[in-house]
């Protein structure tokens, strides 16, 4: 769903992919299983009010439409080579992702971004990592016609491919009262995607009053989440919006892992300034070069959006690994390590990203809390992945930088030397625990 830019890094990605998720097969399309079924609204923590707001009046949910949408979601014919359906990158048994760093489309081409999950995507205020699409319906054209995803030359080609099956023409007649057209393909698939509700986690049961639903470690993690870890400042939870996202875009210093990020950003700003508004020039640059890391900026052309990506939900993270827009972090410990050291310093870093000074046991508690956000249908898979990640985290911590996390050293260009950050005072009590029970 999120791929956009042509990519020539196939070999690199393949190597990285197999290294990062060695246990995961690259063949993803499994066909519909029970995990692909529409989900019940009868789940602990289900936000019924919010749900009523996000169903668009011009595309109400009906069983026939949902069934049609589901068939289209698994329809290989929507791709140019007849092999890549939506579930190719959004596989139900993988939390509606592909568990790859970045996704593979037709002819084994790789894009530049990590496939976001369909789970709870109906609640997203914008779609794609950079929010360039406003609705589930509108985003569908993106992957269908993107040359490195499903590769259709046009939406007309997609319509023609669907029309070739008489059964589809009949179903479109029944559901929409006319023959196949692309907006209705979009409506049907979006209606199916809106059935993928993912709540009912141990955490939801805990918040509903079941004290025993989550472990003590997860409870400590929830406290850190709301306090010392500052997680809640973007991944907020409340009963009407229990989504763990602020729906905004932030530069958390992920793109800046690449050394060329800042020069690239400066170049883009330069182009923007010199062309007096060169929206087209930026687009050209974005497609012709490795500018995917500039994120939201490519949509808004606003400097403060450089390197900004949408805040993702935190539910079912243990089936949607790896993490971040480029899939660059293999484990939740690596992901938290990234935040703990204050991200990777760059001139466009969001103001909320600061060294956290989390200890090892605090990180373990945070991961235990995140694990408690797993919906029941993924409990077994998540347990397995947790064990793998836990084991790995005991020996491999590429992002761990305790000195930076504790503010004992400057963090790279500009902030090095006499102006380096100092970290949170370790002598103070954990604010997350003050005033708590």
């Amino acid at each position, binding site marked *: 769903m999120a791929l956009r830019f042509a990519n020539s890094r196939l070999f690199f990605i393949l190597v990285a992919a197999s290294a990062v998720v060695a246990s995961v097969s690259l063949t993803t399309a499994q066909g519909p299983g029970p995990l692909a079924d529409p989900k019940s609204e009868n789940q602990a923590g289900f936000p019924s009010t919010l749900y009523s707001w996000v169903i668009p009046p011009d595309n109400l949910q009906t069983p026939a439409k949902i069934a049609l949408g589901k068939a289209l979601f698994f329809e290989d014919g929507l791709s140019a080579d007849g092999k890549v359906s939506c579930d190719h990158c959004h596989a139900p048994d993988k939390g509606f992702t592909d568990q790859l760093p970045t996704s593979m489309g037709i002819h084994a081409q790789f894009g530049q971004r990590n496939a976001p999950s369909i789970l709870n995507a109906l609640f997203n205020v914008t779609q794609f990592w950079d929010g*360039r699409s406003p*609705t589930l319906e509108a985003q569908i054209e993106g992957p269908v016609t993107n040359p490195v995803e499903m590769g259709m030359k046009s939406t007309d080609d997609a319509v023609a491919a669907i029309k070739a099956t008489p059964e589809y023409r009949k179903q479109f007649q029944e559901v929409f009262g006319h023959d196949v057209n692309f907006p209705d393909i979009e409506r049907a698939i979006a209606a199916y995607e809106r059935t993928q509700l993912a709540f009912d986690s141990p955490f939801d049961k805990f918040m509903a009053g079941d004290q025993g639903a989550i472990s003590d470690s997860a409870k400590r993690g929830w406290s850190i989440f709301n306090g010392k870890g500052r997680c809640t400042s973007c991944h907020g939870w409340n009963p009407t919006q229990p989504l763990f996202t602020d729906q905004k875009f932030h530069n958390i210093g992920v793109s800046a892992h690449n050394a060329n990020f800042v020069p690239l950003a400066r170049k883009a700003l330069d182009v923007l300034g010199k062309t007096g508004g060169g929206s087209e020039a930026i687009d050209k640059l974005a497609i012709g070069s490795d500018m995917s890391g500039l994120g939201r900026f490519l949509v808004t052309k606003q400097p403060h959006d450089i390197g900004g990506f949408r805040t993702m939900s935190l539910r079912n993270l243990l089936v949607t690994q790896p993490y971040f827009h480029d899939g660059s972090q293999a484990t939740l410990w690596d992901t938290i390590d990234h935040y703990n050291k204050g991200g990777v310093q760059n001139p466009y870093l969001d*103001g909320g990203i600061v060294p956290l000074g989390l200890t090892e046991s605090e990180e373990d508690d945070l991961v235990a809390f995140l694990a408690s956000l797993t919906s029941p249908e993924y409990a077994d898979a998540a347990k397995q992945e947790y064990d793998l990640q836990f084991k790995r985290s005991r020996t491999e911590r590429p992002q761990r930088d305790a000195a930076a996390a504790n503010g004992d050293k400057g963090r790279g260009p500009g902030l090095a030397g006499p102006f380096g950050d100092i970290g949170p005072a370790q002598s103070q009590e954990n604010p997350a625990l003050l005033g708590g029970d």
Partner: protein
Amino acid sequence: MAARHKSVETKYMEDRDAVLRGLRGLDRRTFLKVLAASAGAVMARSLIPPHTFQLVEVADAAPDKAAEATGMAGQPPFTFAYISDTHLYPRTVNQRFVRGAVKAVEDVNALDPQPDFVLFGGDLAQLGRREELDLGRQILAELKAPVKMMVGEHDWFYDLGDTWQEMFGPPNYSFDWKGVHVVVLMSVHEKDFWTARKMTPAERMQTVAGLDNGIQSRFEVGDDERKWLSDDLAKVPHTTPILVFSHSPLYKYYRNWNFWTEDAEQVQAILKPYKHVTVIHGHTHQMLYNQIGNISFYGMLSTAWPWPYAPTGLPPLTVQMNRADPFDQFDGLGDGRVNVRPDGLADKIYSLWDRNPVTVKADYLVSHGKVARPPAPQFASY
């Protein structure tokens, strides 16, 4: 399909269509002229316009009649940057504000072309200590462009300016720059409230640093410095554009927070004979602008924290910035630039760090809000 939310792209395309529809009304010759002028102006300033397709700064690009009238025709326009109100504590006490100050320096150093100079708007330190001022001096030393220093009350009231003056020289001075006369004022003098109360320097500083207390007096330029200002301006023709830098706003906004200069009217009277006067001030930590008679006022952003707007007294011309995100250290903060036009008027760019930049044009102020109303700096909407 009917989208319930308009995406950024949809709004962008709609806005762009509107602009292009408007342009169709122009004949080809004028259209090309406008386009070329726009591109030229943008290139000259390395401006990042609020909307990428807008034909920004067109008015600036055309040498206008006002410029000829002020005798400034042919004078190159110039740009200076500003950083203000860093409020540094020692690093061991507070690293957030250090981070803000460093970010501002990096921001300004990244400008291409570089500004003619960088105005530092005062309140370098939080409590006037040598350690704080020295940290600030080290950070500002990283700036590539020359720095013009201004003093704030937080720099002054621990030792009544001894350390600051030792480091940076006299607090009020003037210079001429590309046809503009620039005056830097020390506008935060206070009447002696400390001797009678037997206050220590630290107590005096803490009192001045507070809001809503009835102990300290109001800021003032004072008799001596007003005299100095009159003398300084005596040799300057009334057609010369005047730029005044002051830490406090040279008008009366909100008394209890000292968003206020007690002798503002008298200072304004000294500036009255001049055709174009622009006052750039610090202290208020917010987007703030005003027009009184011939004088345009612009407040600067802080790099440390944003103040809320005061309960009363906000100039009606100010388009308010909405509440800053408390979780985002940089929200509502920033630095900025001032483009001094060939006619001597000045446009101000608020480079908000975590929001879209906002340009406030002199045309908006001098027309008393009739034209060029700046947009409210909202968070990017969806």
